[in-house]
């Protein structure tokens, strides 16, 4: 129940940001964001709101764990 995609922040002010979601730009509200987000960072977008800042380091860690699991099968 939560169609959402990451968008890259292209411009921002205190209340909203223009994000690029894989080639389409849209303005999103920052009213739900618990933390500051900078141009170049990614946010999860749902119904025209940024709902979370995406953490690329966590993404990397998640993938690394999965790659290890994948290697277990081959190795």
């Amino acid at each position, binding site marked *: *129940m*939560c*169609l*959402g*995609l*990451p968008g*890259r922040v292209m411009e921002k002010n205190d209340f909203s940001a223009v994000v690029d979601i*894989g080639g389409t730009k849209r303005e999103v*509200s920052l*009213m*739900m*964001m*618990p933390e500051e987000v900078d141009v170049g960072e*990614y946010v*999860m977008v*749902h*119904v*025209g*709101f940024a*709902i*979370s800042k*995406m*953490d*690329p380091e*966590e*993404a990397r*860690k*998640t*993938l690394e764990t*999965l*790659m290890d*699991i*994948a290697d*277990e*099968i*081959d190795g």
Partner: protein
Amino acid sequence: MKLTVDFKNPELAKSLIDKISAEVFDEKSYNIMEICGTHTVSIFRYGIRSVLPENVNLLSGPGCPVCVTSQGEIDAIFEILAKTDICVLTFGDLMRVPGSRGESLEDMQSEGYDIRVVLSPLDAVDIAEKEPDRNFVLVGIGFETTAPAIAASVVSAEERSLRNFYLLAYNKTMPEVIKFLLNDSKLNVDGFLCPGHVSVVTGEEIYFSLPENNKAAVIAGFEPVDILSSILYIIYQINRNEFKVYNNYSRAVRREGNIKAKKLLEEVFVKCTASWRGIGQLKNSGLCLNKKYEHFDALKVFDVDPRPAIAKEGCRCGEVLKGYILPKECSMFGNGCTPEKPFGPCMVSTEGACAAYFKYSS
């Protein structure tokens, strides 16, 4: 976009599929329930059921907010349209849901009623501000992912002193329906795929009751690698008999959730009893406008009362939502109940279990 592309990686997905096959014990059966309409659709779109071992069963639970919006709540929209000259603003998901008399918002739109699809509740507020001589009602459906956005829009409407904007507050929350499922002695589920974006707002705590009841719980994102790895982690928990809430969507979900979003909910809403189609009434599972914002409440302002839900005889959606039966086990499936002419709520929305089965399963 690396953040999505990496989690669509086909080679990694295939390795996870192999790992799942290697991990399952042949003599065991693994019943995994997802409680998120977007998971329902994603699982079908990627063809995940077809790559899992036979003894891993994916069940769809009550995670489709359109499906669980009660018939009375839907009929209230049509009642307001009949009572007064108003524009209905809605998400696209609701456009084809039929009222009790068979008509849908899409039908009404073709008849000339002013019904507009919005992508964001804030767009609804902007529209109301641009047309001060017209009244607007936003149909607010969705769970905890969407509810704060709707709350923010109500706050914005108040800040702009709008008196032509109203809300049908139909948002529902997950904890009570999770409790309902756990209290069901007939529930035959070993683990839960927990909704990734609801979790962005709520954090992990709403799922603590699951491991406490010996159910696996993994918070999952929506890409194929997210879903497959989450299924694998659930299987690990079941095999080891060690249950906990595992956040497998840490790139978006924080343990404590989104404090600001939760504050928005507290600012605007108060918990109330909600009517869940296919399940019944659940206390404290709905979000109603509190006193401060009650002048936006469309039900109060237009004096409309959503009638209590009466399950249609012959409809087995309740059993589908609780995972007792698969959609195709209902005799009406495809036979009097189709996405074009839905008889019950599970067929009503594109991500209802029955509709998804109908569209995506041969």
